[in-house]
């Protein structure tokens, strides 16, 4: 297919292992920079936005009129600060905790695609992986809270644990809806299936996805601990919660993790609901046709898509900032009530509703929606599935996924989903969807 970076490097005379290392390091470095620079930018943005909200200017001096470099200056200050470990602390865990948080927030990015083929790791279970790894972030917080040897930190950690574990349930439910609508857990495929005008975005797919998007946003904000759900660091109650005892660079790692996951949650929302790297008007993919052109034009289209994704995600972050500077904080029991009494039932209801919509209004599923400009979503999905196995397609694939549809398997399957052709031909087709257009 395309020339990969590895091919390029080896043809330039580099030994193979080195080429692979470089190929692996490129996305890592890029993503670390995205998280770190993202944190810088968003902290600056938070200051500016909160300043505007509060009728003041925010940073104005460092780095010119808009204080662009304020966060950088603060970062340098933090590096220069003394790194204190309290006497009561469990020193090893105390030191390691911020890195655990940051590593989780960073590792989740590995499976996120930024455009077609632009991901650190093109996984088939990307959605699941991202959620699972994002859930690990709470570990760092709990360790920090416990290891600090301070009661306020412990309180913060306990709250965070309770909150994050609870909110994973509705968050998972929300995420499952786009997954089953698209019939894949591969984020690239989910994104690609929303190609075309904004009407193709999954948020506009049916009323239930529209509702569940807002539930997702609520749960997302809660799972990354932003106001009004920032119970773990509620400064008016718990001093600073889990990071009360932290100072200097370690403290800033918590912040990078927080902003990294904010951006992650909102990027996930964009990929799952808001058209991923496709703009509301398909200029590059359909208007100019660059996306499929390959070569430098395809690269440009991908770059535009990547910028589009990051822009949309940043908008999500700005909404979070806006909410934070507007609303008071909920109490911990009210946070749990919101989760268990509102978010979970709402998400479940939307799940069932979307399921019913899929079952009874099949003509509007992405695979068969009258797609503009002759986009065939089912074909997109299939092409991506084959591509995923593509370059490395092995013997086992061929063996395990017979290419011809065998007679419909009997009994159990047909009973469970009546009137449906059981899709065994494709390797990935879920039950309940027409296999081919």
């Amino acid at each position, binding site marked *: 297919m395309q020339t990969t970076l590895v091919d390029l490097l080896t043809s330039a005379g580099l030994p193979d292992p080195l080429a692979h290392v470089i190929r692996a390091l490129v996305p890592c470095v890029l993503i670390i920079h995205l998280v770190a620079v993202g944190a810088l930018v968003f902290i600056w943005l938070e200051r500016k936005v909160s300043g505007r909200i509060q009728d003041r200017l925010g940073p104005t001096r460092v780095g010119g009129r808009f204080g662009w470099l304020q966060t950088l200056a603060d970062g340098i200050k933090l590096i220069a600060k003394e790194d204190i470990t309290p006497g009561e602390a469990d020193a090893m865990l105390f030191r390691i905790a911020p890195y655990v948080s940051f590593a989780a927030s960073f590792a989740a990015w590995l499976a996120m695609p930024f455009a077609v083929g632009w991901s650190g790791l093109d996984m088939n279970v990307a959605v699941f992986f991202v959620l699972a790894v994002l859930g690990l972030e709470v570990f760092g917080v709990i360790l920090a809270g416990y290891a600090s040897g301070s009661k306020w930190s412990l309180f913060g950690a306990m709250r965070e644990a309770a909150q994050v574990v609870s909110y994973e349930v509705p968050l998972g439910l929300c995420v499952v809806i786009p997954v089953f609508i698209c019939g894949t857990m591969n984020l690239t495929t989910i994104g690609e299936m929303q190609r075309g005008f904004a009407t193709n975005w999954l948020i506009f797919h049916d009323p239930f996805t529209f509702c569940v998007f807002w539930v997702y946003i609520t749960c997302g904000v809660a799972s990354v601990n932003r*106001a009004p759900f920032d119970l773990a660091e509620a400064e*008016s109650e718990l001093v600073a919660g889990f990071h009360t005892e932290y100072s200097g660079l370690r403290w800033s790692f918590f912040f990078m993790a927080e902003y990294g996951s904010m951006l992650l949650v909102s990027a996930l929302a964009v990929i799952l609901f808001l058209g991923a790297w496709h703009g509301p008007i398909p200029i590059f993919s359909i208007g100019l046709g660059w996306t499929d052109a390959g070569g430098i034009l395809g690269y440009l289209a991908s770059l535009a898509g990547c910028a589009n994704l990051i822009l949309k995600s940043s908008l999500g972050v700005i909404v979070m900032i806006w909410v934070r*500077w*507007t609303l*008071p904080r909920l*109490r911990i*029991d009210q946070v749990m009530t919101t989760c268990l009494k509102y978010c979970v039932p709402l998400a479940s209801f939307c799940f069932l509703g979307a399921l019913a919509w899929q079952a009874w209004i099949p003509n509007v599923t992405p695979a068969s929606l009258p797609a503009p400009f002759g986009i065939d979503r089912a074909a997109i999905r299939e092409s991506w599935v084959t591509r995923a196995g593509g370059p490395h397609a092995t013997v086992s694939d061929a063996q395990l996924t017979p290419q011809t549809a065998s007679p419909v398997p009997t009994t159990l399957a047909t009973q469970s989903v009546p009137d449906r052709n059981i899709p065994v031909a494709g390797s990935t087709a879920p039950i309940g969807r027409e296999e081919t257009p």
Partner: protein
Amino acid sequence: MAASVADQRVIEFDVRTDEMLVNMGPQHPSTHGVLRLVLRTDGEVVSEVEPHLGYLHRCAEKIGENLTPRQWVPYTDRMDYLAGMNMNLGWALCVEKLLDHNLSDKAKHLRVIIAEMGRIASHLVGMGAYGLDLGTFSPFLYAFREREKILDLFEEACGARLTYSYLTPGGATADLPEGWLDKCSAFLDQFEPVIQEYHALLTTNSIFIKRTANIGVMDAEMVTDYGCTGPVLRGSGVDHDLRRDGEEIYTEMYENYAFEVVVQKDGHYPRDHTYPPVPKEAVLGDCWHRFYVRMLEVVQAIDLVRQAIERYRSADGDWGIPIKLTQKLPKGEVYLETEAPRGQMGFYLVSDGNSIPRRVRARSSCFCNLSVTSDVCRGALLADVPAIVGSLDVVMGEIDR
């Protein structure tokens, strides 16, 4: 009363954990200065709260026994440093009561203007800081934005922005400067609509209501038993305001002013303005009502200042020349309470005929208001403690003196 530990609800989803003693303060973001609360907590449920005071004690009363009354005025500023004007006023009236000093009408109206403006400034801080206690930062800055304008006015009148020493025994240190009244009315006209913003951000915000309604409920009997005063008292539905019910030397300042005590009577608050409705979750005597009373008092203070400006313009007499620094005091003792923004601030003075009083004492409203915390916070959740303490709106400078 808040949910106590014996309450069935608490047990229902309680997992047995060990009790913890936690120090909230004296360095804690939400204890309004240097208050230290020792909390005994079982998980998130607080089973006991013990306030510890004295971190800001500056011997103001003892110093008062070595200074003449006018010299002591700056010390009253530093008691409730958020309402210095009202502290000045209390002390001034107390001394005047001993001296049997009569003020001109003009001076009285001036005092009403200043005292009510001080009340607005003080309640603005109380409101903003309460938002801060509940985790929202923006109302705090909105409140300070308006308070700055009041401080500007005060600065113009007396030269200070926090510790004014403006109202002194005998009157005020100076007359209001030229054009001050116009600026003041202009401010009031600009400020009144802004209050709607506060209502939108806090009073009627559903999260705010969730956090404050039915939290820290104190019935009328309890607040009177503890000797609570001010908005805390009126928030529980007790119709008592020294501006109407106080001693004559104080109430005559407010004679013929159209004003009604802000308190819920027969299920509703005085309706001379359009206020946001009381949410149905709110119970009389909870944090929400205390906050609401403060907000209404701000509106009412605006009204009072407007009336006072009118009267001041047409009144005759002088603005009140202060007594001499070393004025001999008549023998005797005197006690006077005034309605400061946070409650009834009392000053007690014993004189043996010298120019320096023999005894000076202050009765702090916040001290009594704070004393309810251990009772009210028992069985509340940890997050309710700042909500309750914040709704009492204490200033430690006044408690410790």
